[in-house]
């Protein structure tokens, strides 16, 4: 895969978003085919239950269709917008149902056995995943766990401190330093999409 693949992928997404705003269902379907795996993965990670994750995927893309005018390409890439939307809707649901369980990055692999989906094969997504995994691998375990707990589980600093059995100040430092290291690694790879 060439180095231009990710920017090209983003340009295609922007074009799809424009067509979705023009009420073109084929564009929505193309967007779904390209990114539903990412949304489903987020939903599975955050909601745990495959049936809830499946429902959330449908809801997120329906919202993308119904409220397409909300997207502003000058503020975020389509992928960033979609991920933010998915995470936000997951948090809404999680708060509503008030279920929060620990699940690590590794344990999501176990969920593969209960999904009838197949691994995503989009080349750009695979490459992006490798870059982020590499960046995460450079973090200390506590930093990674704290970021995961904040981002995927929506836990507060206090809750993370309890979970990791670390002082509140230490947890804040973990998160701050971890995010900075992640950002720097991604800046280096120029991956921000």
């Amino acid at each position, binding site marked *: 895969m060439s180095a231009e693949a990710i920017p090209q992928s983003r340009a295609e997404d922007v074009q799809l978003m424009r067509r979705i705003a023009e009420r073109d269902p084929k564009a929505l379907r193309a967007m779904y085919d390209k990114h539903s795996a990412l949304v489903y993965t*987020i939903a599975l990670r955050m909601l745990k239950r495959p049936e809830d994750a499946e429902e959330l995927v449908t809801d997120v893309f329906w919202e993308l269709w119904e409220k397409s005018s909300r997207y502003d390409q000058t503020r975020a*890439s389509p992928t*960033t917008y979609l991920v933010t939307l998915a995470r936000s809707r997951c948090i809404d649901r999680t708060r509503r149902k008030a279920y929060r369980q620990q699940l690590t*990055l590794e344990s999501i692999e176990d969920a593969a056995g209960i999904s009838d989906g197949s691994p995503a094969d989009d080349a750009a997504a695979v490459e992006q995943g490798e870059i982020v995994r590499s960046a995460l691998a450079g973090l200390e375990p506590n930093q990674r766990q704290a970021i995961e707990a904040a981002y995927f589980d929506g836990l507060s*600093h206090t809750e993370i401190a309890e979970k990791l059995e670390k002082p509140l100040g230490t947890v804040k430092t973990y998160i*701050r330093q971890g995010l900075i290291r992640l950002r720097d690694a991604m800046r280096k790879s120029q991956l921000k999409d």
Partner: protein
Amino acid sequence: MTRDELDQLMLLYAAGAADEAEAGEAEARLASGDPQAQAAYAEALAVVSALPKALPQQRPPVRSRDQLMLRVLASTSSEASSTPKSSSAAASRWIWPTWVAAGIAAVLAIALTLTLADNWRMKSDLITKSEIVDETYSVAGSPYVQMTKLRVGDAPDAPGKPAGRLVYCPVSDKYLLHVFRLDPPPPGKVYELWLISPNGKPIPAGTFTVDSRGAATHFFQAPKGADYSLAAITVEPEGGSLTPTGEIRLSGSLAAAIQ
């Protein structure tokens, strides 16, 4: 606040890791229209939004896309046909069965259009609102499509009685089930569709429940080249069964499918 501090603040805020005071600060800066804050937030959002890409990606079940696109096309179709009509309430009641039949046919056909879309190149103007209905009817009348009526026992279709339609596309080996007037399954139970091979072996084809009208639409992707002679719907425990355990509510012979 230095640029570096601003970047860090926005990183924490974008990751959902800011405390109350930090979140308030970030929101105030963004609300003020500060371009530096907005740029920092955009970068932070892009950084944290990349986190899920580190997870092993899993695709949702195929039916999710079918359900989404059915919903989308149903909405565009209803927008196109939402012109007010002057018929009286009495007249509306009189034509109700025709309207229901046409509606069901349209929904089935729209769904089939979508399920076949991977194999059929849809004309570019298919999706325009004015042509959706025409196209869906043409798919419903296509020689590729086979439809089986599902009934209660051997009783013919009758008003008020549960019924179903199972549409099969041999091109994609996909089944679309639509049922009506089924009672809600008992608590802890669901309906399960079975496709029965000529040697009598029942194959579970997915579970579903019904809405307040007793209606449901359900898709099943059969293995390539699979051969079935009967279809049946039973009541099963939530999560479904591997072999039928409950009473048969609807059934039909696929050999009698209408082409």
